[in-house]
């Protein structure tokens, strides 16, 4: 069964009904070793909120045992912000009048050198969706340069075909980040009025194409704030489990990005509180004990410090969402969204150590000589 068909089994109205009326006992679900899909849903329900501390204690131990006192650090690198899509919530929206930029290969090298000065070895490269500006060949040329500076390179770009993923993997890419943004299809279509991204199912099946091409790690998520968070979190967990079952060799991780202010000014229709984000994270950890959890600089320094023990395995550091943000003063340029945690890599490193954790800079060693 495709994931699209699987999703259809869980109609939003039925989920809402279950969320509000389930008679399952939360305290019996929390300590279980394996959770059913409906038990996971129950942990996302309003009924589970009073049990957050109990969930946290269990999530802490599971994370400690499976991942230890380690937090992997990475940073994003924006290659270009040209985009043909019209995502109403995004600063890169094509109708958004702004100065656009694409890094030259020389600038990519300069950015890489600046970032690697901080000690980071894991990089996530991003582009908007523009095959004209950011072609697969351009991205591959960038990756070849970046391999000289980093041991792991992930991509957060527009969805590709399987053979295109294979091409990038061959050049040294080992990870894919792709957010469905919204799993609820009617809302998805509303928020993506035009452009190739409007194809819901093509985006939904993107992780599978990358997995077929042999990608090593996949990070998925929903952009929180665009639709009801309980059902969106449920669909995200289902998607993760589906991928784990179909491609058990993939190292899978999840992100829970909350909408941040951006140029364009779209206001989230379903804001997600700190408490809600914590509930999502804990429910996910109990449902998928060995999946990674990524928290980006969208969240504030204080909040990230508190989240550390609840199951986080990976954090971004020293981030800029501006193209060229590491090499020049871009005061006139705006990023994709505003960064909340503005600390330097060294400051984040110190904060992690202070909490009794070890920041990890290298967690992959390239198997091929890509030079």
């Amino acid at each position: 069964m495709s994931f699209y068909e699987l999703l259809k089994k869980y109609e939003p109205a039925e989920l809402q009904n279950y969320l509000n009326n389930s008679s399952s006992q939360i305290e019996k679900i929390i300590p279980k070793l394996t959770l059913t899909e409906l038990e996971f849903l129950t942990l996302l329900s309003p009924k589970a909120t009073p049990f957050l501390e109990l969930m946290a204690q269990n999530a802490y131990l599971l994370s400690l045992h499976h991942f230890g006192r380690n937090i992997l650090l990475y940073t994003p690198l924006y290659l270009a912000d040209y985009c043909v899509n019209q995502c109403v919530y995004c600063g890169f929206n094509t109708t958004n009048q702004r100065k656009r930029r694409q890094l030259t290969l020389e600038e990519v090298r300069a950015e890489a050198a600046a970032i690697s000065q901080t000690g980071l070895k894991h990089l996530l490269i991003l582009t908007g969706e523009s095959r004209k500006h950011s072609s697969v060949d351009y991205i591959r040329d960038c990756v070849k340069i970046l391999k000289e500076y980093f041991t792991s390179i992930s991509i957060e770009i527009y969805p590709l075909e399987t053979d295109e993923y294979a091409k990038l993997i061959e050049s040294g890419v080992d990870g894919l980040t792709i957010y469905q943004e919204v799993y609820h299809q009617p809302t998805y279509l509303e928020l993506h009025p035009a452009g190739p991204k409007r194809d819901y199912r093509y985006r939904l099946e993107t992780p599978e194409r990358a997995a077929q091409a042999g990608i090593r790690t996949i990070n998925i998520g929903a952009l929180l704030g665009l639709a009801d968070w309980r059902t969106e979190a449920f669909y995200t967990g289902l998607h993760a489990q589906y991928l784990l079952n179909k491609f058990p060799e993939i190292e899978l991780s999840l992100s829970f990005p909350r909408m941040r202010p951006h140029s364009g000014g779209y206001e989230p229709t379903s804001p997600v509180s700190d408490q809600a984000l914590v509930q999502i994270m804990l429910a996910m950890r109990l449902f998928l004990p060995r999946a990674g959890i990524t928290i980006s600089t969208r969240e504030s320094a204080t909040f990230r410090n508190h989240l550390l023990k609840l199951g986080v395995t990976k954090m971004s550091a020293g981030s800029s969402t501006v193209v060229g943000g590491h090499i020049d003063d871009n005061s006139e340029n705006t990023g994709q969204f505003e960064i909340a945690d503005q600390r330097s890599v060294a400051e984040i490193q110190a904060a992690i150590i202070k909490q009794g954790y070890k920041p990890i800079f290298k967690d992959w060693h390239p198997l091929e000589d890509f030079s």
Partner: protein
Amino acid sequence: MEDQLIIGGTKLNSRLFLGTGKFASYEQIPAAVAASGAQVVTVALRRVDFETPGENMLEYLPEGTVIMPNTSGARNAAEAVRIARIARESGCGNWIKIEVISDQKYLLPDNQETIEATKILAAEGFIVLPYMCPDLMAAKRMVEAGAAAIMPLGAPIGTNRGLKTEELIKILIAEIELPVIVDAGIGRPSEAATAIELGAAAVLVNTAVATADQPVLMAEAFGEAVRAGRKAFLAGLGGTQTFASASSPLTGFLRSE
């Protein structure tokens, strides 16, 4: 009589092997090694940062430590072989713990791929220690493939659930002539002692030490438990009786003749 464990021609003084992942700082590793007396230490090549001073875990290992790189991250035999070669070329020696995980849901090792990798790497002169699901036929094939020891799991990695596979491990100990090293799942020193009492040649522990409130003290406890377990094994455990002596023995008639 000298009681020494010999693997790949190296005489080892400790039957406790330590893992290095999951610690809160690299400084804890040499302290845990010293407190436990462990001599063999496994490191994931993927984590070794050869370039950054202070971030290279190998710099923290005390002199005399036998480094056993592992192939964490390998999804098949070919990747395990590549990781092993990189480890050797990077100066990590010729020991290799093969870890092939094609299942990220439970992190269970893939015996089939592990046998393949063992065959290739043993032929290349590596001292190969394959991490495996305790299966007798797979273990025999690893022996044939040239393994130096075999490393069955006690329970799924990171679970601290103890010797859940005890019955299968007993069979491996009875049938396999190579050292059997219980790797993964051991959550407390008493379980390590049990494994050694059963006749396991050694145990490998990481999570239970690295995630304890006081890792160094826990490392010391594991060192003592393994030494006690070995003494008990050598002394020969007294049998236990399942039932009280029967008042009407079934074979009493044999004496009346």
